[in-house]
């Protein structure tokens, strides 16, 4: 079985896995990193959203081989030690979460959006595809605007 090496939340890791194994299961089942959640496995719910070289990606549809040599960040790696990322802090300030299951993905999607777009408009926020079955959309929108300094 091939070995793949990548940077996970700032640390170099190596795993033995078939090349096509989806990164979601590499993270969750082989490495015990459970922040990224399964919601569909086919790229439509975005609950698993994490960062690959700083951009949002869905580990459930990304093979481990496509992550080799890259920087993978999950929700566990977003904060700087005990200092929350501004998006996480905004999520606390707006008390966004309900069941919380979609929120790692929502936060990672919002953090990636704000990285490339410092002042997202309502239309930009509308383009976020992550499902929240608890319906926290209004607070997500408010939290993104708060994190953007509005």
């Amino acid at each position, binding site marked *: 079985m091939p070995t793949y090496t990548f940077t996970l939340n700032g640390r170099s890791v190596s795993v033995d896995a078939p090349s096509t194994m989806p990164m979601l299961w590499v993270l969750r089942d082989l490495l015990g990193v459970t922040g990224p959640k399964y919601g569909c496995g086919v790229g439509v719910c975005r609950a698993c959203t994490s960062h690959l070289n700083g951009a949002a990606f869905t580990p459930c549809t990304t093979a481990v081989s496509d992550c080799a040599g890259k920087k993978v960040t999950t929700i566990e790696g977003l904060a700087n030690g005990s200092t929350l990322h501004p998006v996480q802090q905004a999520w606390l300030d707006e008390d966004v979460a309900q069941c919380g299951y979609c929120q790692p993905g929502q936060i990672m999607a919002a953090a990636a959006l704000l990285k490339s777009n410092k002042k997202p408009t309502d239309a930009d926020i509308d383009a976020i595809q992550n499902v*929240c079955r608890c319906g926290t*959309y209004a607070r997500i929108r408010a939290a993104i605007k708060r994190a953007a300094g509005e």
Partner: protein
Amino acid sequence: MGHFDRALGRRRFLTALVAAPTLTVAARLGADALAPAAAGAVVPSPAQPADLTDFGDLMAAATAAETSLLVLQVTTDNRVVFQLPRAEVGQGVTTALAMIVAEELDARLSDVDTPLSDARSDMGLAQSTGGSTSVRSLWDPVRQVAAAARARLVTAAAQQWNVDANTLTTHDTAVWSPDGRSASYGSLSAAAAKVLVPAVSTAPKSTSAYTVVGQPTTRVDARDIVTGKARYALDQPVAGALPTVVARPPTINGTVVSYDASTAKTMPGVVAVTQIPTGIAVTAQTFGQAMDAKAALNITWGAGTIDSVSDSDIQGNLAAATPPLAPVLTPYVEGTFNFAFVSHAAMEVLTAVADVRSGSAEVWTATKSPTGAQSAVASAVGLSTNQVTLHVVRGGGSFGRRLFYEPAVEAAQVSKAIGRPVRLMWTRNDDMRHGRLRPRSYHRVRAGYALGNVTTYQHQMASVTVDFSGSDTGTLLANDGYASPTIGTAFFGISEACPYNFGVVTEALTEVTYKMHTGSWRSVYSALARTAEEIIVDELARAMGQDPVAFRLQFLKTDAERAVVSKVASAGNWGQAMAAGTAQGVGFHQEYRSRAACLVNIDCTTSTPRVTRAVLAVDVGRPVNPKGLQAQAMSGLMDGIATVLYAGNHLKNGAVVEGSYADFHYPRQATAPRQVDVYVLPATGSTPGGAGELCVPAAAAAVANAYARATGTKPRNFPINF
């Protein structure tokens, strides 16, 4: 009902000291858990059953025989621990209960822990979560137990300092003396455990002294959630628990005739292939490998239980089963309505971890029926109930779904068969195609009016039978003699009431049974029956030449009900000029001893209608956490938008067509309102009503009514875009 102490205005709960090295106080939960409603209003329409007894009251009555204890403990490291006999699925009950404990104990909220109790067979049905009853049922006993604990801590401090206990105060998880000395609760706990007769009152404080209850408060688990630390069932660190998925039939309740796993077993990572009653389970090192091997199974499936049945058949049978409405001699409005099947589609699919050994089993799952799940697991693997430890873990949404516990049973069956601990997951496809559905329903409504009054209101609803079996709700209703003629009609009787003075009111449910997976879906019948009713209310107003808001204010029965409608009308700028193709709509609902109104603005100028703005007002009698109540209102709003405009399931030849959020169109940001305002009305009573399901019917109705006004149509079939 339990004994109602009129002198106090609410029941007293006996509390007791539990023999323990540190302070541990218990109160009995059961007979006294819910206060009966105040007497009804003065109304021309006679009270319907739901006006007098609702599910919450029934739950109290049905659990009256239980003598289970709620236990509060103060540890030597100054933690206040209340083992919460409820499920946390996003509704915020851990936060609300921590607030109530902190309030009565004068503890810092951050010093209070509310872990979810393992299944407690002594507690039985009193441990179930449902019917928006959690805060209602725990409010009195938890306040009592915390107040009793506080009195013992104060007494212990007075003894240590040799001062009059009445001179001491409490705040910040400590007792304080007038000279400035203080002692933490943790340091007093051992001494307090020996206080048999407290020297100060053990009565809960007066509501005017509240500093925690009623304050908008962030969830106690918010930081764990945003940092990824919050653990759901599959995230539990159970060593060696192997990923497992189940191959399920192509049609509902199909069975395995034969299967060939020879290819699957040779695939990478595969550990075991096991037949269980619901399909063929594949266990592997990772879920990806388990799913790949599942796809490689060669299974011959037998027929399911409804293979020849599609939506149109059911709709026809429901219509045929619905009793005709009585003719009316006055002018009238009427409508027939159809609501499609709807999946719960909780974000976290159904999951459980199980470790079954000889003579014992341990299970981790998010369930709202823990003792039901515990005994189902026990009988599935041939153990006695007390040999099964069932840990209730946080759930990723429920909406009624987690009253049922299929994954716990399946995980236990597989674990027993292979002799290893397993983590069992339903895939999203499984969840939508073999999970439970809100039943399809059909409604005939007719309302007659004369001389400015509504004189008759008739509503005949027919629904595919809600299968409550396999949930504590079903057990509870059956135990209480409500199984005849069906549990569903009984539940309908205690949950549905027309809130308007509409003269002679007739409402009834007829159920048509299909052998398929249905279940209670957030607000059960209300989001169906009340939405149809609220649409007719708007049509009555139009026929009688009245404004929909003014009409509701005239015909609602109580001032409290009118207050929430008035609030959304003023805050939502009701009657504002709206562009062509856009409109406002309102809806109202009362249940669970609470009331809510919703006003929405809708834009129907494109093929995908969108609610652009929403205003909700909720009156729950006594708000515990306004922020949490706002969250529940927003969530109910989204369920209303979803089920009226976009989200439903088709049944075709015995199978559910939709398989994921790609075709089950739950809203996303682009179809959610950009502006939502929720007003939690100040306390109007001494006790909290229910809130978890309250806003779904009001919101669904507001969306349907706004759609009707924007498009000039009479919406009858839901979801509208289906």
